[in-house]
């Protein structure tokens, strides 16, 4: 009887939560276009420390954050949050652009493809593949580094990243893009 009450209470709670969850908003075709183009800007801007990295930071909301994680749906343990931290992550920051030769992102092309966008109650979420060309200081070496898991918010300036998490592919880490290339097996 006690178990039955617990199950009933649990079921009731679940249905209340489900009923309370706000419905996802409908996205228009223009919303999908804008979100995909936001990600395209990300791919093109990340390679260049324009405006001291603040052009990159401006792709996010003022409280937006970026971080790396090993699994989908698992938040990063550490994030870069806010314009200064994000600009710094893009090799810039208040002090200006760092030496590109010393930045781990130099020489890389971010290939962001297969983006799936889903409407949510607060905006939208997305998942993409991230493939890196030019890893390990070899301009022809390419690997699937992982993917991006995003949340987007529509602001007065247009769509922006609320969060962007780099989800590393199984066994991969940031060291895969910067260490020297192994001897080719080819």
């Amino acid at each position: 009887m006690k178990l039955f009450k617990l199950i009933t209470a649990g079921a009731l709670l679940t249905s209340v939560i489900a009923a309370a969850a706000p419905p996802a908003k409908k996205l228009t075709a223009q919303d999908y276009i804008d979100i995909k183009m936001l990600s395209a800007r990300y791919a093109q801007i990340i390679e260049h420390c324009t405006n001291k990295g603040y052009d990159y930071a401006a792709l996010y909301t003022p409280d937006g954050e970026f971080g790396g994680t090993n699994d989908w749906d698992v938040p990063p343990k550490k994030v870069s949050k806010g314009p200064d931290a994000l600009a710094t992550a893009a090799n810039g920051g208040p002090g200006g652009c760092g030496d590109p030769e010393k930045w781990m992102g130099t020489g890389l092309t971010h290939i962001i493809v297969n983006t799936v966008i889903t409407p949510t109650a607060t905006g939208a979420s997305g998942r993409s593949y991230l493939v890196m060309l030019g890893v390990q200081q070899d301009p022809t070496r390419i690997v699937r580094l992982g993917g991006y898991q995003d949340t987007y918010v529509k602001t007065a300036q247009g769509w922006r990243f609320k969060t962007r998490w780099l989800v590393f592919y199984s066994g991969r880490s940031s060291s895969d893009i910067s260490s020297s290339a192994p001897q080719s097996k080819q």
Partner: protein
Amino acid sequence: MKFPPRRSAPSLGAVLLCAAGSAVAADNMLTPDDYVALQQLDARYAFAIETCTNKGYDYADLYVPDGEFGVASEWGKPPEKILLKGRDALANADGGGPGGCRDPKTLMGYGLTHIIADAVYTATPDGAASKEQLLAIGVGGDPSVIESQGGYESKYVKTPAGWRYVSRLHVFPNMATSVQFGHATPSVRPAPVVQPLTAGEDPAKLVPPKTASHGSLTPQDYMDIEQLSARYAWGVDHCTNNGYDYADLYTEDGEFGIAPDWNTAPKRTIKGREALADIDGGGPGGCRDPKTLRGYGITHIILAPIISPSSTAGTATGTSILLALGVGGKPNVIERQGGYKDVYVKTPKGWRIKTRWHVFPNMATSIQFGKPVQ
């Protein structure tokens, strides 16, 4: 290792001509919502095919209940065999099925990352059709080896649940020489060369706009311009219609040129229909031997298009990233070749390229176009 020429397959030419011809009349039948939904279906395909989610039924449910998957060796030709039909068969091919997911290491496609690019969508009487490039990374068990695996020809229908595949053909002309499926040896990558930084990006084109305004551009305009660029990738790789399919992507006075950086105009441009058909390997005299062309063997992958309205109505600008696979005559070698910087104009025939600058900062060290490494 034999690699099929990319610019001389007559059957592909036929299908491209057919697609290009029908596209002019039928493109307006697909709304921006349709384009978005078709793109999203194709993106979901890439995720689903590599992960046996929901016992493979997430993959199967991208198709109509009696949907088909097959493999063809030539573009525009029916498949030699329909390999899969129906929900259980499709889920099974994804490594799943009623009994659950099998060990992924036992599957032929184990370890592959699918890059699906340059999708061209056309309206058909029954719904829509598309052709797409497929690049696979991680072939032969090496996570850094990439190869072209042809692409897809698909037919879609709009159901009450949304767009679904009626059929999806993997067109795989080079299957016998595939590293993954033909067990061929991948081509040897050349020694790395120093690449200059792609400095000088035009900030005005990259900075996120300060307002959410799209100027005079509608969702249809964005989709049409995106499709124009996708058609470019197919047109430039194949001399169809004697190169005029490529030339007709431009305005009558359209120009192509190569620029050293994002803020410098080309010193010399190719201008007008005849000249543009000529650089595609064609012209009034027909298509030349593709092996004599500098771009022979390349697959163009155009990514991350940013399209911006300009102050003049009916015009727009754009930038994109260009990758080239198959450089240096080596089918498994890929390089970044800068990107494109474009001006588009809306004509009575639709959006066309007014200027396309191939911004190529690393041309001197390019494997395909640079001087040979000593």
